[in-house]
């Protein structure tokens, strides 16, 4: 369980006034070495969020955002605007985690194994995720790499988003489809 209580910030994380990050697992998988790897604006609430950043991962989150127990998996860049809501247990990932090509995947399995000390991992596809202002993302939703979600879009609970979402679209499903338009 990611229990309540403030998390202690890594040196390369910066948060604005009145922003809180809670949960004892918030930075358990925070491995970024980038300067300003995590920048969160003012008045945001990051309740039980997992910031799982690879060595080169950078996450930028705006003001008045509200995330509950979201999982952020970042090897390149997540850029999230202002007034963004991310629901419980939603996942945002900017990477494929492993190569798609079978032979490459074997090399990766070895590099990741306890016996693979020192071996470098093969190239893995990653593309930044951008989430614009006023986006609402429901619980259990999944946002995959390279996706841009336009301002004011509404991602229903449990959606799996594989493609760009136009501004103010309401989307649902796996894969997510546009089902309507928001005000």
């Amino acid at each position: 369980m990611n229990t309540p209580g403030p998390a202690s910030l890594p040196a390369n994380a910066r948060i604005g006034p009145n922003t809180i990050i809670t949960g004892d697992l918030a930075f358990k998988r925070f491995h970024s070495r980038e300067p300003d790897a995590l920048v969160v604006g003012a008045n945001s609430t990051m309740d039980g969020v997992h910031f799982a950043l690879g060595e080169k991962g950078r996450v930028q989150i705006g003001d008045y955002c509200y995330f509950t127990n979201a999982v952020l998996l970042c090897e390149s860049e997540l850029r999230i605007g202002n007034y963004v809501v991310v629901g419980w247990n939603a996942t945002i990932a900017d990477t494929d985690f492993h190569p798609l090509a079978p032979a490459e995947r074997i090399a990766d399995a070895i590099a990741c194994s306890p016996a693979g000390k020192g071996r470098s991992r093969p190239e893995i596809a990653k593309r930044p995720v951008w989430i614009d202002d006023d986006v609402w993302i429901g619980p259990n939703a999944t946002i995959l790499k390279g996706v841009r979600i336009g301002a004011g879009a509404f991602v229903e609970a449990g959606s799996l988003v594989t493609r760009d979402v136009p501004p103010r679209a309401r989307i649902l499903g796996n894969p997510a489809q546009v089902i309507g338009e928001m005000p």
Partner: protein
Amino acid sequence: MNPDRTLPWDWYPGRIPENVAVDETAYIETTFSFYFFRSRLPKGVEIGRGASTYLGTMFDVGPRGRVTLGAYALVHGARIVCDSEIVIGDYALISWNVVLMDGYRVPFNPLDRRKELELLPTRQPRLAAADVPARPIRIERNVWIGFDACVLPGVTIGEGSIVGARSVVIEDVPPYTVVGGNPARATRQLEPGVRATST
């Protein structure tokens, strides 16, 4: 439950709220399940005979919300987001990471949503609590909901039905029907059968 409404086996230092009625044969794994509970109704949550809730189950119940768990219902880690009413029938099986939500807690209009998000950091604990419509959810008796599934506002799932893992249910499910997918669609029918229901 101890006389002071703590649980002898609890890892979290909380109590069962006064307006939560728990049958003496029911089991609650942890009072952390009530961390976001703030119903002001005389019975905000009612937990029936032989019902059980396990780690990860959260009663995220607003001031006018009411949740009922029927007899022998088993909730194995669901997020119950309730501002109106959520009824879970007898013998229902609700799996882990299931979301039952009767509302969205924020206005659909982005400008109004901004106002709500500006209020949010002033609350303790911080949560969305806009006065927006909610539509009750009914999970009838003997329903089984698989892991990671979501049930959206206003949905009724009929007696004996099965909701497959990771399904998203956006409309009513008739009795004795298996649904799956996102959005969920009926895939087959079940025979009710006959079985003694006493223990």
